[in-house]
């Protein structure tokens, strides 16, 4: 590249930094935003600045917002009715596509956060506590290296017309159904080959509420009422 090319490139990079800092007027801001949306190299440049400047966030002093704000926010998001029970969030689960997407998102998140399981751990004892804030459904899962998970229901009520379904989420894959599980009981669930292939510390078990008999297409459609990562005992 010539000296002039370098200068031009510096100018362009500076323009992306100006965009990230919010220094451009509305038109220029919108125009460069549209441009960035089309071009991967500009996205990388934007991410570079966003990530570097983010380290300055810790210079901002936290300020506690007034306590009534959350109620307003909840009313705005979930409707004006009084705080609804967790089960009402079923409304959000009508769309199977959205549900599948979100569960896949969690799978990706956990893959990014948890160490990859390694096959040597297959014989070790593993445990997972399955719970979720706002839900009273709780299970404990134990794996003793024999190829099956022993699942104990600690709390939660049966829901008429619905079943609880157990899922394994591992290695960035879509959730794999491990079948419908009863509440108020103990069960043993054999690991299928598909589950066993990715099984180990860091695997996530999740329970969703599904139509009776389980999710019709092998893709979770209901809310996650309990989940937990598998860890070594």
């Amino acid at each position, binding site marked *: 590249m010539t000296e002039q090319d370098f200068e031009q*490139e*510096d*100018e*362009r*990079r*500076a*323009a992306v*930094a100006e965009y990230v*800092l*919010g*220094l*451009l*007027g*509305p038109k220029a*801001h919108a*125009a*460069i935003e549209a441009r960035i949306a089309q*071009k991967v*190299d*500009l996205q*990388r*440049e934007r*991410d*570079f600045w*966003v*990530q*570097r400047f*983010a*380290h*300055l*966030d810790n210079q*901002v*002093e*936290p*300020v*506690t*917002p*007034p306590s009534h*704000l*959350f109620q*307003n*926010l*909840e009313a705005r*998001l979930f409707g004006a009715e009084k705080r*609804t029970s967790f089960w009402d969030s079923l409304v959000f*689960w009508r769309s199977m596509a959205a549900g599948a*997407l*979100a569960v896949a*998102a*969690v799978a*990706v*998140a*956990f893959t*990014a*956060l948890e160490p990859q399981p390694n096959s040597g751990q297959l014989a070790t004892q593993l445990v997972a506590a399955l719970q*979720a*804030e*706002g839900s009273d459904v709780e299970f404990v899962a134990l794996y003793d290296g024999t190829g099956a998970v022993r699942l104990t229901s600690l709390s939660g009520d049966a829901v008429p017309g619905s079943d609880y379904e157990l899922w394994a989420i591992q290695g960035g894959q879509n959730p794999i159904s491990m079948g419908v599980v009863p509440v108020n009981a103990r069960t043993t669930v054999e690991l299928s080959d598909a589950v066993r292939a990715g099984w180990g510390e860091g695997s996530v078990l999740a329970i969703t509420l599904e139509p009776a008999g389980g999710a019709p297409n092998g893709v979770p459609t209901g*809310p*996650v009422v309990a989940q937990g990562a598998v860890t070594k005992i």
Partner: protein
Amino acid sequence: MQADARDIADLISRCALRDRAAFRALYDRTSAKLFGVILRILKDRAETEEAIQEVYVKIWQKADRYVSSNTSPISWLCAVARNHALDIIRARRPTNEDIDVALDIPDLSPNPERQTEAAEDSARIEYCLGTLDPDRADAVRGAYLDGFSYEELASRHSVPVNTMRTWLRRSLIKLRECLTT
């Protein structure tokens, strides 16, 4: 990732799953930080109280996008808050569209060293700001933390707007060199 960051990432993921209890927990854990970020830019409590609700609506709606971003969970939340506050003040400012931006941008040449990811030394940006003239480092901080416009920066530093813009752009180019070496 630290335990705290892992918890917050987990809460964001559960928001993507429409878990309202997780949303409440996320709000409890992070709202003071985001309130601080927005208040510093808007400098008005009543406006900040309105804005932070809009920000958490966005967070609830966009939670599934977090996983595809490459930032720490707190940085992602702060960016949502900061960008929202900036949108508010940008819409309010007298339009200053004489600033030209090179929009017809050919591909930028790849910079391999840039791929080193964000987990790296967070003191680096401070170190690199320290290599700039103190005035100019202040201007960069003012733009990021306070959301100052070129006009505001120019009047705070008592220089013409065009001078401020030239300063700042040069400073950003220097900053970038420092950050990538």
